[in-house]
């Protein structure tokens, strides 16, 4: 065989191609899996797929190595040694399922709260959530709470969607693009493709990130912002846009609550709430007469400023005036924020001007008539071609919710939400709070929960609290005073709360794909201690841990019972509209995974196992009247489960003949149709519904027809967020329930109904001298969390990580590339290798995310560089802040959503006096690998070549 005479394999087009969905990150691209001789030979992007249109990233292309990973678990395991040791014995599935049924059954019979069921990077949350609801535990969530819940929740509350799964920039038409706090992640390929399109058109890209790699490297302008100050920058841009009159007033009147009247009655319980009529419709002031009338009045010309008298005699002011007053204040002037953000005032002023210029001087017009929800006909679609994207970088701060709100508000003020050239919603979004459930709790023995766990509280009345109005009902304290709007739960608090038995102890911790003993926890070291901690009787404080994963991760070693999952090429999955959709702005899309190969190990898809357990536990919806399982496996569930009549996990090819989309009876051939179509369904949105979905009748009709909503949903963008004001009123003691004393000040100051900025909590009481620097992680493009390290190809790219240190910091500390340094925070110290870098914010250290590994995990050699020289910043981060003056320890989270404030970390650095050991610290011990030894040499493709 040589370079000219290659014959066999994918090149000859003779391989069979099976089209499924990638799972090497959360992007969910379509892939063509080339098969030869029953084996996976080559994976490429699917050109027809709506997400990736043929391209594929490094992770996706390395999928073969993941599929053949030596770290794959082979059989159910039962712990034989101490937790953390990695000592297990293999058991049969029957024994494993019996044991799990016994543990779980006892909990359900007595107190379902004693089960905490949390799924990590789960892509089947609508199913796992449904299972948990049937089980009856209130303690369910996935990983959103430590990922980007701030972004998502702020978006839903403000306009019915945020970035990524909710919407995307109009790459084809935008004239200016600004991206905040994104290294490479969410969503990975579409952003790269979009940036490519912008570059082809020569559209300016502005990157806002402390670190100038990846997307920020190719940005035409880079703002190396100081972490945690994005909100200040955004509000300074708002200040400038308002000062110069560059806002879209018409848009604000039509689509936002800018004209709504806010009650000005400082002593009353209604102060700061919207003035409403008897039906609850908000009031506006008629501009000419000053009379307060319902905002639903057809043709009303509302006032945006002024002070008006309400029918009951109270005074009220339009939202817009409050907003103008707030942001025109000098505290948001560019010169006032320059020092704190690290961005020069002139730059902020210039960029505000560029935003205004693109939005108002280069408007995009599409000659497409449309009708708005009020029935008004528009002859054309007028766009403000400025688009934004942001993700974890601005979310993962204790001020992240307000910062994300500020960014959404900025887009609304220039009128760029869902217009040509702006941000575009993806079906089924927009879906404002009005179309969202409330959170549900109220666990009773042997009873299903009344509704879904996760939802959007409208006010303090929707919190999940015990009768005392203070104690959290959930183990993670989601929807409690700690984090009232924690719409994704707070997975990062589960283990520490369960360990502290606060609010109560649990019996079974059941987790899926969540590497909580390692990179998915704040302060991994203490989490490992909690998982192994024993009480006075010598029993583990967290008594039973069931864990399902496909690979020998760090968490495996800390569990008692392991249910081995399949790899992504061996399983059924659905990427469902009920869950985390993959639609495009102009198409309703969902997709499947299907077993393109059968597992060669004694493993089962987790969702099928869950259905099996559900049937054994006789959970409602999982067994029929005779107690027989309703679903044979997950594939059966995907096709036949109906959440509501006609609505199931997949939207495509519904109805008996497969002719319906969205709504329709289950179609037994549905999966076949998906497979024939390349693993996905894509149904185009009518052109009239392409833009202004928040107010577009054609969209609303289409969404109802396709089962995305049951009826019209009013979506007025909430510049002023009344639910936050309600929490403030509760804190002021004006409405019930009233938060405990120690929460009140924080709620009063942070729950501003208008987007605001406050310093990250970690800075509070922090001595700048002791911890003068910021430390953050960036997600490498070629590695997804800890999964990648078992991948023989990807680990060559990122086998260890250095801490990048700004040049000036290096110089002042006598550090050079390759030196070892000690980095300390208020909660710990780590020893790391450093590298000098100048293209970074001058007070920010950074490293790649999740490269460090525990020795013995992932089937790696115990001396693998991941374990000896790699490191995690997590060891420096605590889920709690240091004790304050009142002796209490506050969560290191956003006070509104509970989002883990990873990026608030403050540190100090010094050169390690001992440069000799060549190893990073801490060393978290070693775990025995429950999977066989890994091969020394990999020659993938050799077999095929011969």
């Amino acid at each position, binding site marked *: 065989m040589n370079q000219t005479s290659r014959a066999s394999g994918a090149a000859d087009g003779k391989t069979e191609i099976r089209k499924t969905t990638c799972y090497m990150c959360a992007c969910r691209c379509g892939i063509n899996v080339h098969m030869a001789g029953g084996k996976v030979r080559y994976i490429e992007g699917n050109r027809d797929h709506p997400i990736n249109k043929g391209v594929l990233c490094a992770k996706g292309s390395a999928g073969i190595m993941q599929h053949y990973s030596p770290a794959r678990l082979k059989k159910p395991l039962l712990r034989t040694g101490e937790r953390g040791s990695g000592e297990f014995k293999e058991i049969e599935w029957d024994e494993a399922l019996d044991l799990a049924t016994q543990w779980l059954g006892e909990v359900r019979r007595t107190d379902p709260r004693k089960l905490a069921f949390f799924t990590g990077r789960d892509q089947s949350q609508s199913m796992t959530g449904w299972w948990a609801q049937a089980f009856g535990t209130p303690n369910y969530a996935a990983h959103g709470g430590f990922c980007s819940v701030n972004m998502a929740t702020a978006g839903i509350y403000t306009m019915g969607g945020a970035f990524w799964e909710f919407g995307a920039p109009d790459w084809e038409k935008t004239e200016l693009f600004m991206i905040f706090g994104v290294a490479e992640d969410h969503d990975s390929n579409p952003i790269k493709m979009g940036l490519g399109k912008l570059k082809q058109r020569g559209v300016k890209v502005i990157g806002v990130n402390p670190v100038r790699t990846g997307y920020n490297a190719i940005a035409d302008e880079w703002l190396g912002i100081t972490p945690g100050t994005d909100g200040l920058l955004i509000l300074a841009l708002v200040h400038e846009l308002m000062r110069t009159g560059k806002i879209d007033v018409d848009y604000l009147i039509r689509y936002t609550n800018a004209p709504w009247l806010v009650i000005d009655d400082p002593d009353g319980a209604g102060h700061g709430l919207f003035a409403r009529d008897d039906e609850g419709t908000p009031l506006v002031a008629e501009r000419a007469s000053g009379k307060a009338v319902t905002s639903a009045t057809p043709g009303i010309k509302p006032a945006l400023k002024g002070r008006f008298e309400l029918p009951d005699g109270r005074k009220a002011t339009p939202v817009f005036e409050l907003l103008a007053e707030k942001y025109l204040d000098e505290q948001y002037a560019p010169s006032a924020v320059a020092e704190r953000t690290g961005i020069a005032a002139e730059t902020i002023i210039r960029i505000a001007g560029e935003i205004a210029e693109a939005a108002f001087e280069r408007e995009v017009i599409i000659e497409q008539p449309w009708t708005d929800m009020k029935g008004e006909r528009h002859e054309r679609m007028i766009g403000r071609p400025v688009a934004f994207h942001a993700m974890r970088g601005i979310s993962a701060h204790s001020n992240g919710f307000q910062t994300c709100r500020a960014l959404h508000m900025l887009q609304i003020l220039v009128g760029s939400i869902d217009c040509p050239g702006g941000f575009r919603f993806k079906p089924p979004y927009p879906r404002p709070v009005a179309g969202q459930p409330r959170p549900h709790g109220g666990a009773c023995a042997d009873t299903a929960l009344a509704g879904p766990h996760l939802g959007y509280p409208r006010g303090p009345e929707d919190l999940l609290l015990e009768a005392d109005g203070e104690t959290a009902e959930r183990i993670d304290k989601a929807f409690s005073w700690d984090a009232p709007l924690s719409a994704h739960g707070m997975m990062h608090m589960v283990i520490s709360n369960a360990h502290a038995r606060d609010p109560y102890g649990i019996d079974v911790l059941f987790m899926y794909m969540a590497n909580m003993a390692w990179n998915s926890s704040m302060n991994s070291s203490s989490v490992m201690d909690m998982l192994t901690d024993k009480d006075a009787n010598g029993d583990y404080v967290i008594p039973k841990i069931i864990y399902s994963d496909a690979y020998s991760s760090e968490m495996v070693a800390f569990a008692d019972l392991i249910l081995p999952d399949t790899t992504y090429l061996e399983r059924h999955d659905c990427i469902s509209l009920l869950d985390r959709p993959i639609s495009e702005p102009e198409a309703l899309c969902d997709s499947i995974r299907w077993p393109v190969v059968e597992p060669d190990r004694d493993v089962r898809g987790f969702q099928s196992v869950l259905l099996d357990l559900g049937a054994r536990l006789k959970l409602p919806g999982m067994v029929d009247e005779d107690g027989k399982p309703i679903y044979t496996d997950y594939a059966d569930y995907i096709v036949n489960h109906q959440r509501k009549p006609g609505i199931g996990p997949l939207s495509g090819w519904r109805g008996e003949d497969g002719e319906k989309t969205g709504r329709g009876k289950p179609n037994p051939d549905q999966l076949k149709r998906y497979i024939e179509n390349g693993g996905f369904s894509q149904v185009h949105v009518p052109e009239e519904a392409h833009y202004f979905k928040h107010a577009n009748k054609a969209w609303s009709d289409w969404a109802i027809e396709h089962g995305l909503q049951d009826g019209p949903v009013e979506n007025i963008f909430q510049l002023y967020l009344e639910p936050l004001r309600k929490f403030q009123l509760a804190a002021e003691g004006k409405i019930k329930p009233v938060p405990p004393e120690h929460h009140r000040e924080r709620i009063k100051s942070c729950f501003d109904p208008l987007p605001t900025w406050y310093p990250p909590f970690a800075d509070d009481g922090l001595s700048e001298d002791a911890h003068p620097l910021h430390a953050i992680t960036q997600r490498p493009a070629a590695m997804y969390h800890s999964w990648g390290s078992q991948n023989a190809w990807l680990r*060559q*790219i*990122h*086998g*260890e*990580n250095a801490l990048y240190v700004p040049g000036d910091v290096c110089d002042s500390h006598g550090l050079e590339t390759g030196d070892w340094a000690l980095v300390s925070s208020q909660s710990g110290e780590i020893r790391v290798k450093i*590298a000098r*870098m100048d*293209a970074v914010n001058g007070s920010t250290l950074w490293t790649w995310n999740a490269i460090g590994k525990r020795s013995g995990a992932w089937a790696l050699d115990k001396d693998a*560089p991941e374990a000896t020289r790699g490191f995690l910043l997590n060891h420096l981060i605590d889920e709690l802040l240091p004790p304050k003056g009142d002796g209490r320890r506050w969560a290191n989270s956003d006070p509104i959503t509970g989002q883990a404030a990873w990026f608030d970390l403050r540190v100090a650095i010094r050169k390690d006096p001992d440069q000799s050991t060549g190893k990073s610290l801490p060393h978290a011990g070693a775990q025995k690998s429950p999977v066989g030894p890994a091969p020394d040499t990999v020659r993938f493709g050799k077999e095929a070549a011969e």
Partner: protein
Amino acid sequence: MHPAVSVIFFTVTSGAGFGMIFLLGLGFPVDASALRVFFVALVGGGLAVAGLLASTFHLGHPERAWRALSQWRSSWLSREGIAAIVTLVVFGIYVLIWMMTGSRQHFLGLLAAIGAATTVFTTSMIYAQLKTVPQWNSRLTPLVYGAFALGSGWLLASAVGTHEAPELWGIALVVLAWGAKWFWWARAGRARLADSGSSPETATGLGFIGKVRLLERPHTGENYLTREMVHRIGRKHAARLRMLALLLGGAAPVVILAIVGLSGAPSLFNLLAAVSMLIGLLAERWLFFAEAEHAVSLYYGHR
């Protein structure tokens, strides 16, 4: 460059061997007993062959080494292989006739000498041709290879041959060789990668923006390129080795030759000088590789 033992051994021994063949071919006097001729020829030819064999250990596929003879029109490595084989064959015939008849065929000898010189030259050109290694890319490289081949060949030949008072010549050749090397080193000091006009700026074409510095290697571990071509040695280490090379490869042989010459000791003692020089040359050759900076290192953080 990675100093591969096989290549170091090859260039030193084959140099000495072909140097000796060169001298014998030109008529270096040897006592005409067949056994003695055989022995002398064995030293010369043996070293050359041993060197060639050693060089094949450097190959990924030594069993295919014969293929290397095909590209004499363009490849110095191919030319070297051909030259070495032709030279050894001619030299073999020359020695055979000499052993059998006791007389030396001068024409054949001349051919062998030309072949040996050509071989050493082609060996040196393998390195000297490489623009990617500016320290090697010099006419001085063939000169040094030739001078060391001649010097070490002379010492060997003088020990086993019957040249009259060969020590003086030996001293002269050794001094000349190190003189050449001195020039080579001096030039190499001025012909580092940084002096060659190549830099991270030219390597990336990004010099028009500003100063270019590697931030991150493509892979965190080593790879073939970094192991083979991004070898780095410490300055102290290099200086020490250079002293060692000069002492064992130059000073010691000169002293030994002087003592032998002045004391009238049997010239067989010159073998000591030869061995010392060869050991010194191993150090010299190790440095030749280890100190050489390859252009590809510009992509791996070298400036």
